[in-house]
């Protein structure tokens, strides 16, 4: 039996899952605060733009978005399977192509800042 290559996508899924588990609640909380009109100065456009303009900031943003995308892609693939959709090859190709597109777009949009 040959060893599977699934660790490529599963590794990204696991890493992305860990990151989103920590960051998603923070994002929800901050969105809620913003909706209530409580936006800390640190989250004004100028500050966030400066953060995204720095190469370290870019790296962090890229890491978070890239891993979250691949986590979501794999999660969707498994969810489809759990819902009884068995065209795994098509589903896997679609979700991973979307994640790859998102990754490339993130890369170029960050470079432009």
């Amino acid at each position, binding site marked *: *039996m*040959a*060893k599977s290559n*699934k660790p490529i996508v599963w590794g990204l899924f*696991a890493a992305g899952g860990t990151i989103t588990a920590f960051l998603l609640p923070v994002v929800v909380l901050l969105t809620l605060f913003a909706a209530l009109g409580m936006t800390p100065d640190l989250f004004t456009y100028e500050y966030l733009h400066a953060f995204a303009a720095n190469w370290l900031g870019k790296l962090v943003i890229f890491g978070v978005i890239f891993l979250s995308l691949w986590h979501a892609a794999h999660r969707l693939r498994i969810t489809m399977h759990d819902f009884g959709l068995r065209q795994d090859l098509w589903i896997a190709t679609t979700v991973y192509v979307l994640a790859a597109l998102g990754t490339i777009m993130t890369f170029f949009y960050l470079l432009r800042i």
Partner: protein
Amino acid sequence: MSERQIQLEVLRYNPETDSEPRLQTYSVPCLNEWVVLDALNYVKDNLDTTLSYRWSCHMAVCGSCGMMINGEPKLACKAFIREYADQIRVEPLANFPIERDLVTAVEDFIAKLASVKPYLIPKEDKPIEAGEFKQTPTELKKYKQYTLCINCMLCYAACPQYGLVPEFLGPAAIALAHRYNQDSRDGGRDQRQEVIASHEGVWECSFVGACSEVCPKHVDPAGALQQVKIASTIDWYKEHLMPWVKK
């Protein structure tokens, strides 16, 4: 001691005479402290000697009496009558071919179990004079939970993925491979990885978690499989990105 009349619906199938399985109902006077296995034994002793089912220890140690009780994989010796209504349906373990009545064919599971080499493969041959292989309590703790598996196959009956993909190595076999991989005295991980890191191995698992829910010995096979996935992923990255690193 209170007694209750239970309608025991039992799946019957004799491949020599029946074209398909059917349900047969027995009225069984059950004592309150009985388990489903006691009710089956009552049927066998007093009502119908032709009923076939496996059992041995009657104390959740041997793992023989696994069956579907009201659609859930259970050990018949651990399923107390008092926890059920007056009608109980008993069927053979799901996902396995029926041999006769409640007896299933287990060859597939046995072959899978053997394929992961569930025994100690010592790192080096050591003469008896050199003494025993020592282990600290911390090292023992790493795998002890997985030694509690009694091969009852409830996890295979609960696993929707095994039902869909019969080639899937399944929860118990992989958890047991993990038990030996985690053992500080063992050196057989590379041999086992060839089987469990394959596509039909741990990667067929979609982490439904039903295996751990039905496990009568609280082995938590789903947890073992997740650990195997992490270890196999690290292996993969090491093998492909750092081929010069020796294992």
